[in-house]
């Protein structure tokens, strides 16, 4: 076993975390059993001394642990299997729904109206057309029609000149 003097000599390198793993293991073993060296280490680095004290303690034995882990493993296996089956059923159900929808679409009578939506712009049209009037005055003929939108207040006239050669 490594001597106290050697441990004190290596203490700084030990704290720098640069000791060779085998040497460090020896120093640790020594520190675990030597209160004086541990006290000297605490002078230089109390946090590491605290860590060494924690390293002394083991967790309590737990007889049921392995069984519980394996039960957890079995549980996950069952879940996975069910999940796998569930996925199969879901895939089958989705396929069935698609087949039904496809068949229905094929058997349905074609619609006269295109299925796609079309935006149509319609210009406003006059709701009523006023009757045309013809007036004859001498050689001239006046042809006119009242504007429906202005409730008859505006008259649109077309004068036909009989001397005009068409």
């Amino acid at each position, binding site marked *: 076993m490594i001597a106290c003097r050697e441990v004190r000599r290596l203490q700084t390198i030990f704290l720098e*975390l640069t000791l060779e*793993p085998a040497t*460090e*293991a020896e120093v*640790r073993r020594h520190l675990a059993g030597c*209160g004086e060296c*541990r*006290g000297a280490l*605490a*002078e*230089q*680095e*109390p*946090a*590491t*001394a*605290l*860590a*060494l*004290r*924690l*390293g*002394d*303690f*083991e*967790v309590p034995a*737990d007889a049921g*642990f*392995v069984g*519980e*882990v*394996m039960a*957890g*493993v079995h549980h*996950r296996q069952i879940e996975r299997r069910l999940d796998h089956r569930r996925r199969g059923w879901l895939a089958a159900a989705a396929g069935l729904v698609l087949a039904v929808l496809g068949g229905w679409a094929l058997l349905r009578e074609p619609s006269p109206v295109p299925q796609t939506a079309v935006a149509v712009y319609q210009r406003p049209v006059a709701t009523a057309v006023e009757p045309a009037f013809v007036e004859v005055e001498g050689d001239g003929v006046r042809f006119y029609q009242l504007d429906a939108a202005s409730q008859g207040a505006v008259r649109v006239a077309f004068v036909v000149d009989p001397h005009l050669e068409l």
Partner: protein
Amino acid sequence: MGLLRLLAGQDVSTQRDDRELAAAARSGDESAFAELVRRHQIGVRRCAARILSDNEEARDIAQLAFVRAWENLQRYDPKWSFSTWLYRITTNLAIDVLRSRESRDRTHKAHLRIVGDSVGPEAPRRVAEGEVQRIFAELAARLSPAQRTAFVLREVEGRETAEVAQVMTCSEATVRNHVFQARAVLRRELAARYPEYLPRGGAR
């Protein structure tokens, strides 16, 4: 082959190393996996307990780590030590727990029994077990999850820096940096909260 060994009175599990057991478990051999759990359960529980400062939570995390390991055996690369891979899963789960804790106060749960031992200036040698755990739990709450994990694996567990780097998926320099930062925080907190536990010279 296994049956022949069993009939010959040989314990099959002790004949196989972790990698062989992991390979068998990957093929669906549950008894091989159960043997891996038996071999590593103490270390995994202890590591989780030290990171979390909560034995019950650590037990749950350790169980979850083994179940995750079973589920992901296909991803295990035998060039790594099985325990390193297992510790990586465990520490990742523990770090997730640390991050998700609503309050740092939860780290001081009731399981950390205070043993009423009188303490003096040379306290580090005489402090009772429960007291050391309680103090560490309280002080470690000031550490970041990475600092805490590095400190527990490197300083408390005494694992090699290279292995801690593999577990934490970072460089060895980063591990050392985390440990040095953790020490500084713990020194400061120890001096502020428990100066009676420091050696006569006090913290640097």
